[in-house]
């Protein structure tokens, strides 16, 4: 047995500090959460309110624009149609809205962070372990404080999804910038580019395939959070899985799970097609 006298109690002060923090600034967070919720709801109502054929048409057009091939276009349009056939259309649109919102936030936060990391070795050495922790820490651990701060609902669900989706974007932005052709980067300097010009004209375009690969991974990470997100009030496909589990309704859980897989395939193919369209011809 480990001696009692050596045990340091961290749990009690952490709980106390958090409760204190919530009491003092909880209202501010709830206020901020309302704005985020507004944007998220707008996206959701757009996707849910749009006629089903329009959504399929937009997805098909997007795939065709990226691949210029009919086979993937038809396959992905059919996959989207399948979501409706499975009776999951509304839930799938809710989940899709959450995914898109999470990815937008992850890119807005992750891209600049990745650029910073590529510039500063020390910041990178300090941040990479934090990113590892973000991906390995069981999500319930940070969901509890998030719940206390934001209340039950879509906003903490978004936060949980973003925390999970963020690391690959940061990592692959950093990687892409570090592996940018040194001659091209030096050429920008040699022709008198400012650091900002160098970043936007040369470094980010060279890193773009890597950044998009990060976005693809982020999609997959985000989708793995769908069920957890449902537990704290994001509805959608995750809720269907949860309902299935709670009622021991195997069929319902399976069908909803299938819906998540279809959504995953959809997002994966879309982002991969973007990667390929951007790096076309470089092989």
């Amino acid at each position, binding site marked *: 047995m480990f001696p009692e006298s050596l045990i340091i109690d961290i749990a009690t002060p952490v709980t106390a500090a958090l409760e204190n923090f919530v009491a003092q600034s909880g209202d501010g967070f709830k206020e901020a959460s309302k704005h985020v919720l507004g944007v998220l709801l707008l996206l959701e109502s757009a996707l849910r309110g749009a006629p089903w054929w329009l959504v399929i048409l937009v997805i098909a057009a997007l795939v065709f624009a990226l691949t210029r091939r009919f086979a993937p276009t038809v396959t992905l349009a059919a996959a989207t149609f399948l979501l409706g056939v499975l009776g999951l259309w509304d839930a799938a649109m809710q989940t899709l809205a959450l995914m898109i919102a999470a990815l937008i936030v992850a890119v807005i936060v992750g891209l600049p962070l990745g650029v910073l990391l590529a510039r500063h070795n020390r910041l990178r050495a300090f941040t990479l372990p934090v990113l590892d922790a973000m991906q390995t820490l069981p999500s319930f651990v940070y969901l509890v404080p998030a719940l206390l701060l934001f209340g039950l609902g879509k906003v903490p669900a978004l936060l949980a999804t973003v925390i999970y989706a963020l690391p690959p974007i940061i990592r692959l932005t950093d990687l892409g910038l570090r592996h940018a*052709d040194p*001659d*091209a980067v030096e050429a920008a*300097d040699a*022709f*008198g580019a400012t650091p900002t010009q160098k970043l936007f004209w040369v470094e980010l375009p060279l890193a773009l395939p890597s950044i998009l690969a990060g976005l693809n991974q982020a999609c997959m990470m985000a989708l793995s959070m769908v069920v957890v997100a449902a537990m704290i009030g994001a509805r959608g496909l995750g809720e269907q899985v949860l309902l299935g589990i709670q009622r021991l309704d195997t069929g319902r859980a399976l069908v909803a799970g299938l819906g998540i897989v279809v959504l995953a395939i959809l997002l994966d193919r879309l982002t991969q097609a973007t990667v390929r369209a951007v790096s076309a011809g*470089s092989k």
Partner: protein
Amino acid sequence: MSGPPISLSGITVLYGPKPAAAWPRVQAMAREGASIAAIRTATGHVPGLLDATLDLPAGSLCVVMGLSGSGKSTLLRCINRLVTPFAGRVQVGEVDVTALDVAALRAFRRTSAAMVFQHFGLLPRRSALENVAFPLRIAGKPPAAAHDAARAVLARLGLDAVAGEPVEALSAGMKQRVGLARALVTDAPVLLMDEPFGALDPITRRAVQDELKGLQRDLRKTVVVITHDPHEALRLADFIAVVREGRVVQSGAPDALMRAPADDHVAALLAAAQT
């Protein structure tokens, strides 16, 4: 308009954690003629260049020759200060490059010294035209004017046909021609070329070398070409400098070097060129 003379005097580049602290020791060892390896072991600092002094004549095609690790690329980068020398002075025409502040240095690079790279350094997904227009665009020229100027340079090099092609679809020889066009578009009187033919096959190499010589007859820029290939040096040069162990061993007209090589190293390099 002929290019300006370039003068490097007492250039030292020192890589390591505390160059200022190591400098007196490095200087003392350098005066005794110590090798770079010896200085590295003794001080923990690697001198890229050691008290290198070189005067390049105005408007000539100068070749800086040396083996790998001799410091020749570092020397080239001191001219537009991609590498900032620890000690010494670089003078391009009337401009003291070592004394320029950030803004003045940027202006100098935009207007006075263009550069060509061994592995081209082009933007792969952009068209040849956009790549050539790049130096003008970052200097603030509006797109239409920049593209017109780029089109004119491409036409001069016979590259009209590939102007719209993405660079990654071009052959190595074409890529380097685009790289050369990009360096000519700013009308900079100094052209710095870092092993520009190193990545080309022998036949293309010869063709691009001839094109450079042809262009130089009209342009009379001060061209500095880095190479480790003695054949190339003798083919191109109006003026040759030999760099070894971070120092300029000898410089002068090719036949002057042939007649009186300063040491065995120079003699061996020139002999290699004639076989």
